[in-house]
């Protein structure tokens, strides 16, 4: 049985801060997975990744990662991506700190 093909997003780390970022629909970079551009076919995904890879003075280490699309936006499939989205579990640092400030 062929593996289920899931939608994908392009993710990377911001060049200066190292923050986890996602390619957004307006082809900028967002720190929020909900605002990520969701790519539903392989060709689009590869084009988006190639575009992201070329933006070397903005981000580092672009790759495609699977998501599940839900009513509250795309959700990570793998726990690693869940941690990347959230920040470390021992301190409210990184994205958690940013979320607390924004709230």
């Amino acid at each position, binding site marked *: 049985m062929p593996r289920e093909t899931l939608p994908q997003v392009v993710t990377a*780390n911001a060049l*200066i801060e190292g923050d986890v970022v996602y390619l957004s629909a307006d082809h900028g970079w967002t720190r929020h997975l909900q605002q990520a551009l969701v790519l539903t076919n392989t060709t689009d995904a590869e084009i988006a990744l190639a575009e992201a890879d070329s933006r070397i*003075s903005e981000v580092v280490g672009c790759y495609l990662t699977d998501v599940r699309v839900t009513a509250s936006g795309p959700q990570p499939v793998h726990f*690693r991506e869940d941690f990347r989205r959230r920040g*470390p579990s021992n301190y409210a640092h*990184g994205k958690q700190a940013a979320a607390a400030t924004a709230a």
Partner: protein
Amino acid sequence: MYIYDDFDHAFLTERNRQFRAQVQRRIDGALTEDEFKPLRLMNGLYLQLHAYMLRVAIPYGSLNPHQMRKLAAIADRFDKGYGHFTTRQNIQYNWPRLSDVPDILDALAEVGLHAIQTSGNTIRNVTSDHFAGAAADEIADPRPVAELIRQWSTDHPEFQFLPRKFKVAVTGSEIDRAVTRAHDIGLRMLRRNGVPGFEVIVGGGLGRTPMIGKVLRDFLPVADLLPYLEAVVATYNLLGRRDNKYKARIKITVHENGIERVRDLVEARFTEIAPQFDAAATAAQLARIETMFKAPALHATSDLAYQAAYSADPLFRAWADTNLHPHRDADHAIVTISLKAHGETPGDATSDQMRLIADLAEAYGHGEIRISHEQNVILPHVARADLPAVHKALRVQGLATANVGLISDIIACPGMDYCALATARSIPVAQEIATHFDALKLEHDIGPLKIKISGCINACGHHHVGHIGILGLDRAGVEYYQITLGGDGTEDAHLGERTGPGFAYDQIVPAIDRIVRAYLHQRIDRNESFLEAYRRLGAAPFKAALYESEAANAP
């Protein structure tokens, strides 16, 4: 401790200037990440899950108070107010901005610290016994030799692109606190017929294929040290595999070629290159370094304050029982400051804690601080009379946890909370084990027990040599933990044996609890430690405790 001379300062200034320009070219887009990555790794800068990480070398684990205060100041100014001490006696900053790293390196250079060769396929920070120069059981202080090796290996042009990273550890005691048998090269100082030298161990290592090192030379005179080390690394540089990253460490080279062949090649190379070394200049440099590691002048003190506190204060008594080690001078003690407060992250210290440690080292410890591979901090020379005052001060900053060598004194790698290579989390597992046994008030009853946790197969958490080792893996997209038992990182080095199937994240603490309870039920008495009981009983009763109750509960 070693004091930089003009050559060292000039070298570091130039190196930092170069890296500042490299960072600028990366930010400007003149360098791609592929071009920049080897340059940043040469300077200890990684990209982790959520941010960059800067790994700063603490040479053989030795710091002075001035350096510790600088580490604290960097944590406050450029990071989030803390640092993480690692199993290689380094410190890692988890949140630096790329554009700040050149300023951080300049700040470190002010106190003679750097991040050179803390990454990459080079000779890494030389590690050593954290009780060096103080332990009653010591034959000789290993730090001058470690410093000599640091100078030889730093920016060594032949060894900047080895097949893989290369780690050297030195111990000056029969009691091996530096895990020398799990290093690419382990050096054990000894004397033969009055001549000082080393037993040279090669090809140890943990990681994917754990190996206990083998003796390459049973006695190497001190005068031959550098040409011999150069011969070993040069032999590895040619013979080591570059076709497969997982088979590139010298342990595999030794395993595949046999220790005899490696020895023959090393000896041949040694004979060839030894005449090129200026033995007299090396001896003079070692002698110069040794003058910088003179033992502090220790004064006889009264034991009365210690005795009074010991009998009156149960908190002090518990701390003194676990966190002190015999000093070679009977009026002094070696103090281990635990960075393992229950529920905190193993190895983390806040900037306030670092400053307090610096103050205490200055006031009571002859200005010496050590970082252990077990992720604790050591004040190696404290007068016994001053111990109550030190303990009282440590309590203010939450640094007086009485648990050194006990179940909550856990080594844990950063795991998937930070590390890009990790396959599962380590830190929360360590936190939960510590709080679990603390809540039960069982820790002191359980006695000496080393738990070591790695969040991936690379084994930064030394799980193979933990009495109980925990390895976090990703099994079909779920965190999954394997247990090993009976490992030992001392002079009796031994790799732990896997118990069987692993456990899910929410089952790992109950699993450890079952192992510990099996030990408590089966030990002869409190004097039989977990490791001794395991060696006497074998794995069977522990496996039964681990799996039988689970089978009984299965649906």
